[in-house]
């Protein structure tokens, strides 16, 4: 199998991890899935770095893996350990239904991706398609899940999707921006992590829908 | 990820099953009750008095493993210290009288291989366990047969879910009145050829409950067990070695 197949495969793999995150209720597994997803993203970046000899992408891949596949999962798992909540108790939609919805979102994503100018077929078509689908699925995840951790993961999924397009389709962005983005992500996760802990301290649960009680 | 973790665990634990049950040495296991050669002081019946299940009879001193519940009360009371426990666990026997030990006959005679049984079940034996009013002691040990330590499955011996699938009936407990009929039903439900294995003192003799009118031990008169596994409860090794010897399975 050649590199384009590898790319498509990794992209599809990212999408599958997205599905599984929707299908999962155990937070630990969800985090692991996210780790795999980021790992695949790193592979994509590295592959492109090799094929198109854009060596700065190696750094990107390195950062991605280091942070999203290792650092952030570790941090989130630590939070879960501390607050001792490991299940998405009641999502707004039950799993089969939300998976079917995700199928619909995938179709939409692909449909849209055919409309893009840069190569509506081949690798890029799939990269864009996957990215858009993941974008939608991530948002869907944010909408339907209540636990703050899941929300963080959903946000990161969306971020991955954007990154996928940035790496795979655009000629690539300057290193500074990437570092900035990476830093933002870290900060975001940290902030949300703290938020989660406050939330648990305040409401003995990390159900985000409880936040509505905060309004004066 | 979990894959690697579990493999790591697996490696860390190493192999735990007992390589050769026949040569195992269960330290501290209260097994066979040995009868010493010394003379009894005249008129002493301390051990008989002490024994709760009437497993000991005098002149000469005989111990019936089929009754003995290994409580150990007889050992200290004997003035001439004739009785002592060893950790010998190969006590299974094919006939009831073989379980009666004395100074002349220190150990039950080893189970002899039955050719017919070897041909039929030597490579595959499925057991159905029936607890006929047992206290769950023996049942627990029967359960333990399948665990990581004893792993009886490696000899093609398994406990199965339905008597229709079974070749042998593992009988535990003294057979109370209410369990007599279900026991019979289970036996009838098993396809020929089949055998009974009596496990534990209660199953073999009714031991502490012997002669109680709440028991109905007619079943054992009708069908003689092929193997007696004494003990209260028996050590899984006793069971395994008994079966292996009976079916002539190398370990």
């Amino acid at each position, binding site marked *: 199998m050649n590199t384009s197949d590898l790319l498509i495969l990794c992209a599809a793999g990212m999408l599958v991890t997205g*599905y599984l995150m929707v299908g999962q209720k155990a937070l630990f597994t969800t985090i692991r899935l996210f780790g795999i997803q980021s790992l695949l993203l790193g592979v994509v970046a590295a592959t492109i770095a090799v094929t198109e000899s854009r060596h700065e992408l190696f750094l990107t891949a390195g950062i991605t893996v280091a942070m999203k596949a290792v650092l952030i999962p570790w941090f989130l798992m630590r939070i879960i350990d501390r607050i001792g909540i490991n299940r998405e108790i009641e999502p707004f939609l039950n799993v089969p239904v939300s998976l079917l919805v995700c199928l619909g979102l995938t179709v939409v994503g*692909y449909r849209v991706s055919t409309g893009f100018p840069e190569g509506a077929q081949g690798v890029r078509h799939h990269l864009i398609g996957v990215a858009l689908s993941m974008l939608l699925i991530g948002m869907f995840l944010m909408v339907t899940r209540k636990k703050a951790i899941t929300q963080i993961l959903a946000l990161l999924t969306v971020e991955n999707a954007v990154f996928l397009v940035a790496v795979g389709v655009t000629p690539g962005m300057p290193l500074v921006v990437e570092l900035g983005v990476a830093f933002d992500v870290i900060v975001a996760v940290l902030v949300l992590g703290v938020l989660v802990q406050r939330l648990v301290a305040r409401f003995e649960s990390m159900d985000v829908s409880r936040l509505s009680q905060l309004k004066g | 990820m979990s894959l690697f973790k579990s493999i790591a665990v697996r490696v860390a634990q190493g192999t735990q099953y007992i390589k050769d049950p026949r040569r195992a040495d269960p330290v501290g296991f209260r097994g066979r009750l040995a009868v010493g050669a010394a003379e009894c002081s005249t008129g002493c019946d301390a051990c008989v008095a002490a024994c709760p299940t009437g497993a000991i009879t005098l002149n000469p001193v005989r111990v019936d493993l089929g009754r003995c519940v290994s409580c150990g009360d007889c050992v200290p009371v004997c003035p001439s210290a004739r009785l002592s426990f060893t950790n010998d666990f190969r006590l299974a026997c094919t006939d009831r009288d073989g379980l009666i030990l004395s100074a002349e006959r220190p150990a039950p005679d080893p189970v002899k291989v039955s050719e017919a049984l070897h041909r039929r079940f030597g490579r*595959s034996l499925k057991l159905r366990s029936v607890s006929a009013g047992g206290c769950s002691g023996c049942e627990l040990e029967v359960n333990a047969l399948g665990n990581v330590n004893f792993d009886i499955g490696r000899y093609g011996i398994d406990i199965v*879910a339905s008597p*229709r*699938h079974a070749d042998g009936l593992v009988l535990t407990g003294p057979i109370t009145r209410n369990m007599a009929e279900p026991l019979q039903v289970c036996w009838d439900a098993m396809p*020929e050829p089949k055998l009974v294995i009596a496990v534990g003192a209660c199953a073999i003799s009714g031991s502490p409950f012997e002669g109680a009118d709440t028991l109905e031990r007619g079943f054992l008169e009708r069908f003689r067990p092929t193997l007696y596994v004494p003990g209260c409860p028996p050590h899984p090794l006793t069971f395994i070695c008994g079966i292996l010897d009976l079916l002539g399975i190398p370990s």
Partner: protein
Amino acid sequence: MIPTILEGVRAFGLAILQAVLMLTLAPLLKTLIKMMKARLQNRQGPPLLQGYYDLAKLFRKEAVRSETASWVFVAGPRVYFAAAVSATALIPVLISAAPLEVAGGILLLVGTLALGRFALATAALDTGSAFGGMGSSRDMTIAALAEPALMLGLFTSALAAGTLNLGALVRHALAQGVTFHPSDVLAFAGLFIIVIAETGRVPVDNPATHLELTMIHEAMLLEYSGPDLALVEWASAVKELLYLTLLVDLFMPFGMATGTAPLALVVSLLAWAFKVFVLAIAVTATESMNAKLRLFRVPELVSISLGLAFLALTIRFL
């Protein structure tokens, strides 16, 4: 095209040979998985030939049947066995042509397995035991849930090859040489889940359970003994081998012989054995690393596989 007499005879000859091959190797596969599982649990596990020993013993034993059972109870295992065995004639194993491929393709294969299931599930209701009813109800439920995903997964591969006939499908794949399309991975993942479900493995069903209330497939067999039981056990083993072979045919047919040259056959036998072995390892890993799902969590699993199959279809054809 109706085959001529000669072709017909040849086809049936091949079918018999292939059926015999599958029948011979199926118990081995079952025991192999059992053994690898035992090894993962720090146990030694049964000897590799245990499957054969058990079958041999069961065939020599008496058949005890329920008083309340009718001829349906007797017919059940036989039809189940016949369905599994004749289904083997519809898939290519060593040669890149299914012996009876003129007789039908994927749809017939699925239909035949459904026939076997129907027979066994009906027979299980015949004894009037609650366990039988429970098993048959659950088995039909899970089969019904698995059907759409199974079909979708099969269709993805079939439509890629432009035929529903497994023989033609494999030949198409071989002719193309080692091609790879990302959708294959997804379709494979989807179908693998279904195979797990259809062959009654953890996390859907637990083949080693002793507790009637947790049984699905086993609960239907509780009443069978001796030869009847042997037939069902053997047929289930064949069915499992069949499913794994199906996965091999659809996704990794490489090394399969195109003719009946002895050397090619040997190579293809080795290749097939190796690939099935790899899949068996995958099954073992799945069984050892997952806990059995509650019955009502199974739909989630199945819907995931449906999603995978659908995604494969999308990636492949859009």
